[in-house]
C-alpha cells in the first residue's frame, strides 16, 4: 500500500494542537462520516476542511492530537483524505486511533521547521524519507514499528480484526 512515496501539499500547524481544535466537542454527536468531515481542524483553521485536497499533509509541532479520546479527530482527517500527519510527537490516544484507521502518523523532530503551508513534499511512509518538490531530502521521520506498519498496510485494524473474528 505504501510502496511509492505519497505526494501532497503541506498544511502547517503549531504545538499542542488538541483534539478540541481538530474536532470541536459540540460536533461529537455527529456520527456519519460526511458530516464529521465538514468540521476537520475547525478549531485551529476554519478554512481547512474546504481547502484541503485528498492526499494533502498536516505537518505540526509536538504533541499533535493531545487531549480527548474522541476517534472523531482521526475520522475527520481520514474523511477529508489527509495523506499523513507528521509531527515530533503525538497524543497517545490520537496515535492509536489514527493508526487503527489506517492514517499514517509519522514522528519527525524537525519537518515543521523546514516547510511552509502550500509547499509540495513527498513522504515515503516505509522508510520515513521526506523530500521537497525538487526531490531533495529535507527530513527523516522515525521508521514506523513493524506492528503499526502491519496495521497501516492492511488499511487499518478493522480488516485485520474481521479476519481474526471469522
Amino acid at each position: 500500500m505504501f510502496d511509492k512515496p505519497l505526494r501532497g501539499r503541506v498544511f502547517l500547524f503549531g504545538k499542542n494542537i488538541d483534539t478540541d481544535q481538530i474536532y470541536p466537542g459540540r460536533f461529537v454527536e455527529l456520527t456519519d462520516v460526511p458530516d464529521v468531515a465538514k468540521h476537520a481542524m475547525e478549531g485551529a483553521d476554519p478554512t481547512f476542511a474546504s481547502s484541503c485536497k485528498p492526499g494533502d499533509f498536516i505537518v505540526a509541532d509536538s504533541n499533535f492530537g493531545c487531549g480527548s479520546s474522541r476517534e472523531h479527530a482521526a475520522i475527520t482527517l481520514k474523511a477529508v483524505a489527509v495523506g499523513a500527519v507528521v509531527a515530533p510527537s503525538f497524543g497517545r490516544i490520537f496515535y492509536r486511533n489514527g493508526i487503527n484507521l489506517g492514517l499514517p502518523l509519522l514522528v519527525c523532530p524537525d519537518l515543521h521547521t523546514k516547510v511552509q503551508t502550500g509547499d509540495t513534499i513527498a513522504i515515503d511512509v516505509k522508510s520515513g524519507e521526506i523530500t521537497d518538490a525538487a526531490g531533495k531530502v529535507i527530513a527523516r521521520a522515525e521508521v514506523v514499528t513493524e506492528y503499526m506498519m502491519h496495521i497501516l498496510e492492511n488499511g487499518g485494524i478493522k480488516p485485520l480484526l474481521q479476519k481474526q473474528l471469522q
Partner: protein
Amino acid sequence: MHALEKILAKKAGRDSVHVGEIVNCTVDVAGINDLYLQTVRSFREIGGKRVASPEKVVMFMDHYAPASTITQADNQKQFRAFFREQNADLIMDVNEGVCHQVLADKCFSKPGQLIVITDSHTTTHGAFGAFGTGVGATDMATILATGKLWLRVPEIIRTTITGKPARGVYAKDVALHIIGKLRADHAVYKGVEFAGDTVSGWSVSERMALCNMTTEIGAKCSYIQPDAVTEAFLREKGITDYDIVSTDADYRYAEDLHFDVSALTPQLAAPSSVDNGAPIKEYLGQRIDQAYVGSCTGGRLEDIAAAAAVVKGRSIAKTVRFLVVPASRQTLLDAMDRGYIQTLVTAGATLVSPSCAACLGTHQGLLAPGEVCISATNRNFPGRMGSTEAKIFLASPATVAASALEGAIADPTAYL
C-alpha cells in the same frame, strides 16, 4: 518490574514484561461513554456478533446527561438497544454521573485492575493502584469483540512530592504547578507514579484529582502505591477482592522528579493551554463571567465542600454565573446530606445534574465569544467550553468559588 508492569504481565498471562514491548491484555473493566456511538459501529464493522465479556462492560450516559439534542438522545437510545441485545446489564444512565467517579462510587476502581475506558481521563484510577488508560472507539470495539487489547509497556516517571501544602492549596494546585513546569507533552506514552509525604497525606479524592491531571502531560496511566489511606477507603466500601502489587527495588525509572510544595501558593492555568501555569496572584482581579465547579477533576464531595465553605453566608457577584456540577449521583446525595447544596444554591449557584456538562463544551453552560470562565475542570483549550473566542482559566474548586464571589479571579485563602 514496576507495579504497573506486574499488572500488565498478569493480564497478559505472562511472568514478566519489559518496556517497549507490545502485550495483549485481558481487560477487567471496559467503559464506553455516550459520546462514542462509533464503538458500536466499529464493533459491527469488524464483524462483531457477541460481546466477549458483557459482565465487564460498563456503559456511561455521562457526557450528554441528560440529552440536549435529538441526535444525542438517539445516540443514547441506540446504546441502550445495543446493551439489551448483548444482555449487558451495566448501564449507568443519565442519573448516575461521570464515569470515573461512578466507578469509584460503585466499587469498580480497586488495586491491580486493568481499567480501559473511551475517556482520556481514565488515568484517574491510578489513585487506587490500578492501571487505567483511555482509548478510542475502535480500540473499545476490539475489547468488546475479544475481551483484550494490545498495550505497549510504558516507561515510568516517578514524581515525588514533599512538603505540607499551605491552606488554600490543593492537589489541583499542585497538579497545575507540576504541569506548568513539565509542559503538556512531557509524559507522552509514559506512566507517571506519584510518591512522597504530600501524596501519602492526601485523601483518595485528592489523589484522584492528581492522577486525573496526568492526562494533561500526555501520560498513558498513573500510579500511587496503595497504602493505609487506600485500604481504609476500600474497607469502608466493603471491597475485599483486590490484588496489591508493588514495584521491585531494582526497577529503573525513566526519570525521577521531585517537587517541594511547602511554599506553593494557589495556582491556575491561564488560557489556552493546561501547561500555562502561574500563581493566581498574577491574575487577581481578572474579570470573569462564569465560574464552574465540577467534572471528574473537581466535582467530588471534597471539592463541593471546599466551594461551599468559601461561599457560606455570602452571595456570588451579580455579574457571574456559578455552575456547580456534582461528579456523580452519590456525590450529589452526600452533598445534599451535608447541606453543601443548600449553601451553594443560597449563595447564588446554579445546580447542574451530575454529568460532564460544559467541561467539554457539549451542553449545560457554554461560553459566548469574549467571555471568561474560571473552572475546576481539566482543560482550557480554545473552544473547549463553547466559543473559541472565550477564555478559560483552570484552578481549584476553592479558587473558583472565591472568584464567583468577587466576579474576578480571587484568592480563596481569605474565605477559608
